[in-house]
């Protein structure tokens, strides 16, 4: 049975400016052992999607659609029932390891609590298990660390502790919301490797949320590129990275600084500026009727503004499979039937990319 199936999930926030549609018609499925990435800029609805899955939306928010965990719609669960799902079947790792731990309790105590809550372990057993988990997540001198308070640990170690807590009850699904954003680059890699290995070893499913395309490229099987609360492009990671289809995805990639960009300056050429996507993210309370990206898109026509474009399959561009700007190390995508993009001008978009 499909582990997680999200159907037309929408989240509406009641704000001063009227209802804001933070998430619009998100639909995806996730099997055990599968990993999914949600990528997009701030305010695109990535974190709201995660909170909706956990049932932790702010009180002013209303979710509609369905979030089925092995067939059961979590949106219909009571708070008490959700408490048994959270941490137990779905676990979450947050962005800020600095603030995600209670400063007043020791690390051992906090991991132990999670264990006693869902696995009903006694105190001694819980501490033994906590020690094992700290070793699993690669904290050196784990025995000593159990008695430490969060402020005595570094950011990377704290994030490892958070991961240990998330793993403590053997969840089916791990949601990692920007797990490496607050860490420095060398630690980022270690934490990502750790998460990836644990997901592989334990056969969990994972949803990784990030605005960092590099992180996404390395870590997940499938990607949803989100914009304005909805999916604009989805598909296997390799396929998306090879055939950037939606103008927004193309813009995101173009906005990544590339190695060697500065070198051109030495040749006397004008210093190349970082590409940006013109315009700003639309106000969620006042989304356009048509494509949410229309106002920032170079290919915009009246058709775009008329109605939201449906997600349509991206046919493999004939004959020029190698002309995309695939990142090194990603195998060329062969099956692209399940690569979708929500754009009515896909052909033009791709043509523009290839000519660039």
């Amino acid at each position, binding site marked *: 049975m499909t582990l997680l199936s999200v159907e037309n999930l929408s989240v509406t926030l009641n704000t001063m400016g009227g209802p804001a549609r933070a998430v619009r018609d998100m639909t995806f499925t996730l099997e055990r052992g599968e990993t999914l990435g949600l990528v997009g800029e701030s305010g695109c609805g990535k974190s709201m999607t995660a909170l909706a899955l956990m049932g932790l939306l702010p009180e002013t928010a209303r979710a509609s659609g369905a979030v089925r965990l092995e067939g059961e719609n979590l949106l219909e669960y009571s708070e008490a029932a959700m408490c048994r799902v959270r941490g137990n079947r779905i676990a979450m790792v947050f962005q*800020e390891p600095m603030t995600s731990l209670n400063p007043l309790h020791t690390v051992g105590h906090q991991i132990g*609590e999670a264990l006693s*809550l869902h696995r009903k372990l006694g105190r001694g057993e819980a501490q033994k298990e906590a020690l094992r988990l700290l070793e699993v997540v690669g904290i050196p001198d784990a025995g000593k660390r159990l008695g430490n308070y969060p402020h005595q640990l570094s950011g990377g170690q704290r994030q490892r502790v958070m991961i240990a807590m998330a793993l403590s009850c053997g969840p089916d699904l791990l949601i990692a919301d920007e797990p490496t954003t607050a860490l420095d680059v060398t630690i980022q890699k270690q934490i990502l490797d750790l998460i990836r290995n644990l997901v592989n070893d334990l056969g969990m499913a994972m949803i990784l949320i990030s605005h960092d395309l590099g992180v996404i490229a390395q870590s997940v099987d499938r990607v949803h590129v989100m914009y304005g609360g909805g999916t604009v492009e989805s598909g296997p990671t390799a396929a998306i990275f090879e055939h950037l289809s939606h103008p927004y995805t193309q813009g995101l990639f173009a906005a990544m600084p590339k190695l060697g960009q500065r070198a051109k300056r030495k040749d006397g050429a004008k210093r190349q500026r970082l590409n940006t996507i013109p315009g700003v993210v639309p106000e969620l309370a006042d989304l356009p009727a048509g494509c949410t990206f229309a106002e920032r898109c170079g290919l915009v026509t009246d058709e775009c503004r008329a109605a939201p474009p449906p997600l349509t399959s991206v046919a493999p561009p004939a004959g020029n499979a190698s002309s995309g700007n695939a990142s090194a190390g990603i195998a060329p995508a062969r099956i692209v039937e399940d690569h979708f993009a929500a754009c009515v001008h896909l052909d033009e978009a791709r043509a523009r990319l290839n000519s660039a």
Partner: protein
Amino acid sequence: MGANLTFVQRCIRHRSFVAGGILSGALVGIALLSVVWTPHNPIKMNIRGRFADPTWNHLLGTDQFGRDILSIIMSGAQNSITVGVVAVGIGLFFGVSLGLLASARRGWWEEIIMRMSDFMFAFPAILLAIMLVATIGPGAVNAIVAIGIFSIPVFARLTRGAANAVWAREFVLAARAAGKGRFRITVEHILPNIVSVLVVQTTIQFALAILAEAALSYLGIGSQPPTPSWGRMLSEAQTMIFLNPWLAVYPGLAIAMSVLGLNLLGDGLRDVIDPRLARER
């Protein structure tokens, strides 16, 4: 202040904490001592020996009934402390419970609890205490209850504000994501994180309760004679203020020193408990 100092070291280095501690300690010590020993029986009159000047036998002299003033002051401390402990206990228990409830449930619960405490804040506390005592009758117990009831909204509001700030922190979201319910989060995460605020407010409320009790006794609606009480000593001394001003000075000093001590202690505790807030002194 160095980060590596232990709790005790931080306490000793904090001047207002030490001063407040000594004064409050003296208050408690004297009250405890008076339970088992006072120089004289504080309620035994000796009309022939009234208005005696300080002697070795009566260190602070005697009052208009010839009672030993030192003994009355010492026993009066008992009264003040009892009132303080019980009244603040009432306020702390109900106020913190209501504040935590408001913060955990939000929505209507929060609205109702907070509007009720706003309602109580709108009345002058002493006036309402007088009204309450007037309807249910004078006496130490009623005074305590009245003072206690009026410290409930203080604690409720403080607790709710501090708790809301903790609820908004990320580790609470992480705790919720770990499947903990509201009650468990309140006990494990919210309460421990607001204890320092509550401790400070408790000492300050304690001082206010002592003041309030003195005021009610001064008005004759607090503890009734012959129970020694600083407030009543003041009101009795008032009529003789020109004859023998010292009668008013002693209880006045006792009240002032207790309140000062408790306020200094509260101030010091705030710094000492939470080293992050510590200021250089």
